[in-house]
């Protein structure tokens, strides 16, 4: 009996091929998932992503049709094209999922996110924050002598840019909703 000749670093010791099967580029996709508004449906969706090792960049969920008992989950995820296809197929397998739309590939869509920014500062910093907020069309929804809370709506990139600008001006807290998205034009 002689042992198998297995090169160092090979996968021979594992029952699985540990190398990625696809080396394609990673893409960012926005998925709209229409689900039955049942207890545990969000856990099913999140559990699927966690259990199979998929990424979630952002996730928003709310009831969109009270009478029809439907909620809409918008998920921004990343992966190779094969992984994205697999994510959609796996989502489609969940009994409570009615429909999965990939807004990234199904034509043009609009994406919006809402952010709340608490910025504290005095003097010139405070004025500068207010001026930039105006440029970004952010609203002041709370104000004290030492702080503002700005409300800003836009694409995730716009909100990122606003956060970058506020950071040196006394940014204290951020709350973001994650992406909500719809396809453009009539259904």
């Amino acid at each position, binding site marked *: *009996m*002689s042992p198998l000749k297995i090169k160092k670093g090979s996968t*021979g010791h594992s*029952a*699985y091929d540990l190398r990625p*099967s696809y080396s394609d580029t990673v893409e960012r996709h926005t998925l709209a998932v229409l689900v039955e508004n049942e207890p545990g449906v969000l856990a*099913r969706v999140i559990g699927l992503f966690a259990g199979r090792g998929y990424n979630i960049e952002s996730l928003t969920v709310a009831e969109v049709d009270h009478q029809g008992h439907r909620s809409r989950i918008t998920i921004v995820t990343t992966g190779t094209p094969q992984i994205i296809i*697999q994510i959609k*197929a796996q989502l489609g397998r969940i009994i409570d999922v009615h429909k999965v739309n990939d807004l990234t590939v199904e034509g043009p869509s609009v994406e919006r996110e809402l952010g709340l920014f608490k910025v504290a500062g005095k003097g010139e910093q405070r004025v500068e924050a207010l001026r930039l907020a105006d440029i970004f069309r952010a609203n002041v929804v709370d104000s004290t002598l030492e702080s503002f809370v700005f409300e800003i709506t836009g694409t995730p990139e716009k909100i990122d840019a606003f956060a970058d600008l506020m950071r040196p001006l006394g940014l204290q807290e951020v709350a973001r909703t994650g992406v909500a998205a719809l396809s453009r034009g009539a259904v």
Partner: protein
Amino acid sequence: MSKTMTGARMVVQALIDQGVEVVFGYPGGAVLPIYDELFQQNQIKHVLVRHEQAAVHAAEGYARSTGKPGVALVTSGPGATNAVTGLTDALMDSIPIIVLTGQVPTFMIGSDAFQEADTVGITRPCTKHNWLVKDTEKLAATLHEAFHIALSGRPGPVLIDIPKDVQFATGTYTEARQVETHYNPQVKGDLAMITELAKAMETAKRPIFYTGGGVINSGPAASQLLRELVAATGFPITSTLMGLGAYPASGDNWLGMLGMHGLYEANMAMHDCDLMINIGARFDDRITGRIDAFSPRSKKAHIDIDASSINKVVHADFPILGDVAHVLEDLLNVWKARGRKTNTEGLAKWWGQIKEWRAVDCLKFTQQGKVIKPQYALQRLEALTKKHDRYICTEVGQHQMWAAQYLGFEDPNRWMTSGGLGTMGYGFPASIGVQMAHPDALVINVAGEASWLMNMQELGTAMQYRLPVKQFILNNERLGMVRQWQELLHGERYSSSWSESLPDFVKLAEAFGAKGILCSDPDTLDDAIMEMLTHKGPVLFDCLVEKHENCFPMIPSGKPHNEMLLGDASTKDAIQAGGAVLV
């Protein structure tokens, strides 16, 4: 006319309406109202197992051998957590089962009550779907929907968690026909793609059918159509572990099982084919070996009812989403309508090549001396039982692979084995489920001694219900497959793979009131097997076999199909690659 009844009564009524004949279960505080109802009726038999895991495996055995859903009933907390292995097993192998669990009363949920567990939370990833029913009014509809979901599309396990107060409360019983569902998976395949596949079949020089458990799950019509298609085209056919029996082992075109411990001719044909037609299989890693070297020169068709199976592991050139029976019917019709053409010249050469591979005789072994080879034991078991109305279960390990290699399966639903999850301890309770479904049939569980001990308590169940299941234990006093991997891959360091302190299996059988048979001599093996077969009750057959036998052929993990390891006894210098130096 609406009927009002308690939740517990609804459970029993729904099971009766769904045609359930047997429930495997174990009572406890949170399911007592349902057990009370079971006590007061005669339509449903209840089988009291000795451990909840066994209830689920028994339900699986029942389902796999009948094509009907299996039902298990267990209590809350530990009852539910013990069911998790069986649920996962059924999910991996697509077995339709319905598991009913008791739960603490709704007003106590979340209070860490006695025997409370978050059952739907724990079982969410290991069921096809599950429900916590908090309202008796919804209970009957949920039960009916559960059967629909377990059986439709890709079958699988479902679980209904029923709090005790919901069992006591009264509500209106909903009939099965009143239940509406949005879950209706597509069964017909795309005709355009089916036509493309039919065209490819006409010109293929080296085609192969690669079939899986999906053919069995699709029902007897699928196996019938498959046989027709194979006979009409003359293409060779191989199958996964899960698909054995869909095409008969005695059929002319049968290459044997493929995969890690599959037959040489089957794996070589998979590697060298130019058209692979996957019917209801899922390109599992035990089948493909190294993905980038998997059947490199073939176009691949994939027929599957689950969209997530297609293109998951291997790219499909002809993806066909649909139920096997429906798709095969269309495929046969289209192929016949186009003139029943195949590439006869190419096929003849292909069969010539396959005959050369067959000549390697990869399952050959030599029985000599006074020690029984496990292969020999199975060869004799096959010879002495193949004429019987026979069902085979297995545990998991070397004996399982040998059983798949040396036993022949002529019909679907005759082979119950844990494929995807690889659950040691599956076979014995599964054999109990099979015997309940087929009281007059010969039910054999081919086991290893280590696997068998994992659910040995079920000897009590077999005795109680007079189930004459035959436990055929290939006893090598080792965790054989673990030992084999340690020998081949871990420098022969046998870490914890020796079964020390084994019981005397004959005495163990007798302690339960069953019959025990010990056999260690190849010369008396036939008589001992006959003694097992003629005994009317359960038998524990302790067959002492060669302790260091390895299971071959073997594709070492991370290797492609054409770098298979063969056993000593194989003729011909079959493997050219470096990996062949072994044994």
